[in-house]
């Protein structure tokens, strides 16, 4: 198993380097000078040259990349042009906020998704199946920012039960695990959970239906197992795929939550990306994208490893 993990790590290295090159080039392929956003338009040529040298933009590209890469692996992602704070700390805080929101949403989605999926798969074509499948189709097809706004209107504006935006009462943007902060995560997490719930429930439904039709289920009944005994086997057979889907959904949420984070002003990576784009804060944009991309690479690796560990049929070659 250890050898398998090492092997996968070796395979992943070129991908990671490729990703870093793309991120690096991002700054140089965007139209306009990266400094033009912060320099006053009437800056003297001399000042422009000075700034260019200060940011290292005057050196040849490969040298710039090597310098940048060297800094990156030491945890230095540069300085935000807009705030002057280190990009690494901005991104770090955003990542932890997004991570908390996405994990909560995925867990909620996984719990309800597997529940609906099992019900629908077990009672195929009954009204229970139609109900559960209907809910999950709704989950995948309803635009989530719209759902977010509807929830805010009902639970914040009308009923006043939950705060509409932000990650905490102090407005500092950091989420902490206490009761007061918990109230802030409920609406965005539920809104976000609708996507993984729909996907997971549909997958599990198909999976369960497929497993129940297999010959070995007949053989399990033939050795005297009751519904509960058979259910345990169905769960064990469905688990590797269901968990893999959950992992991929988590990854998807971690990267693709700009809309929800913006609707709820949740200070995560999506919110940060949004800000970086609109302020043309290229170092911040570069750092955020790099971190997200690396995260995806790592996530795929983890999903592969976990699935291999869970499913004896996959060869650990």
């Amino acid at each position, binding site marked *: 198993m250890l050898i398998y993990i090492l092997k996968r790590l070796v395979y992943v290295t070129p991908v990671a380097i490729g990703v870093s090159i793309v991120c690096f080039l991002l700054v140089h392929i965007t139209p306009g000078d990266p400094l033009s956003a912060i320099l006053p338009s009437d800056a003297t040529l001399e000042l422009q040259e000075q700034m260019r040298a200060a940011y290292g933009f005057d050196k040849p590209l490969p040298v710039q990349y090597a310098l940048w890469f060297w800094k990156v692996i030491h945890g230095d992602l540069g300085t935000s042009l807009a705030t002057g704070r280190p990009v690494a700390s901005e991104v770090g805080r955003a990542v932890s906020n997004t991570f908390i929101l996405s994990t909560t949403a995925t867990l909620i989605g996984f719990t309800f998704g597997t529940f609906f999926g099992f019900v629908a798969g077990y009672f195929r074509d009954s009204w229970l199946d139609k109900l559960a499948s209907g809910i999950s189709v709704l989950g995948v097809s309803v635009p989530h920012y719209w759902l977010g706004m509807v929830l805010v209107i009902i639970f914040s504006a009308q009923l006043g039960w939950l705060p509409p935006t932000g990650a905490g009462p102090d407005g500092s943007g950091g989420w902490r695990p206490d009761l007061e902060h918990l109230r802030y995560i409920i609406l965005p997490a539920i809104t976000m959970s609708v996507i993984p719930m729909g996907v997971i429930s549909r997958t599990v439904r198909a999976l369960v239906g497929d497993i129940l039709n297999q010959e070995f289920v007949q053989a399990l009944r033939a050795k005297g197992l009751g519904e509960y005994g058979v259910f345990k086997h169905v769960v064990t*057979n469905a688990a590797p795929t269901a968990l893999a889907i959950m992992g991929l959904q988590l990854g998807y949420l971690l990267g693709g939550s700009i809309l929800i984070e913006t609707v709820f002003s949740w200070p995560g990576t999506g919110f940060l990306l949004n800000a970086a784009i609109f302020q043309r804060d290229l170092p911040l944009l570069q750092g955020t994208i790099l971190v997200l991309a690396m995260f995806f690479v790592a996530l795929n690796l983890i999903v592969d490893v976990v699935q291999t560990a869970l499913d004896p049929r996959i060869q650990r070659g």
Partner: protein
Amino acid sequence: MSAAPLVDVKGLTVDFAGSAKPVRAVSGVDLTLAKGEVLALLGESGSGKTVTMRALMRLLPKSARIGGQVRVAGRDVLALAPDELAAMRGPVVSMVFQEPGIALDPVYRLGDQIAEAVMRHEGASRSQGRARALELFERVRIPSAARRLDNYPHEMSGGMRQRAMIALALSCHPKVLLADEPTTALDATVQIQILLLLRELQRELGLAVMFVTHDIGVAVEVADRIAVMYAGRIVETGSCARVVQAPQHPYTQGLLASRAGHVFAKGERLGTIPGSPPDLANPPPGCAFAPRCKVAEAICTKDLPREYQAEPGHVARCVRLAPAPATVAA
């Protein structure tokens, strides 16, 4: 041994409530199986052998309606509650499936699959169950049994998997073993080993065995009696020797065509008969074989023939066996 037979089936019917018209896969099967007896079920594909066999354990999809009477070891199988039925599957009747590759759970270790059955029926602990599994693996002669217990099904060859399947079927000391083409999925040399193993276990344990095969040589070698099925009915039953040497029903004669009197070699498949079996959703009124029968008479397409005795223990559903006019006049 004058007691009631271990398996006693009367007028068994199985209908599949399908999309359009219900399909009558089994229409009135009578069968008995005594303790320690081996019965071979022969017949073309689609004649209802698998469905009949599974009906004995009520192992059919929800769309199946089972009628008639099935008694196994004194139990009225069709009247059992779900938990009584589950309690019977394993210690009373168990089944060896045709393809062990798909009949074993792919993500459970083989030892645990056997231990699970022992734990379920005997309230044993997991380690006791594993101990039983080891015993059985040795009994079915799986080499390095202790190590093999931790294998997953895909890690074994087809023959070894079928041995494991047999071990599983025997795990709770059943009285009746049902085997649906237990060797068709295997290659020829392995087939023979598995058959020899089954016969040996059957003799040692005094099992009653019902098995489906397409191989007459196997039937002759392993079985005491043969039952021939056609379109959901048993058309002829009798001792192996009699059925093979003096088949009474034209269908059986067709199957054995040009073979009568000759010794059957293992591996010899049943012959084929021109024409095709009737549509089970629209069965013909009389004898189902009449449309393909060379010696059919007018009456054959009208009334369903009843069973006539050729000699004690050898019966066939064919009017040609009817005793001459005396009965008609009475």
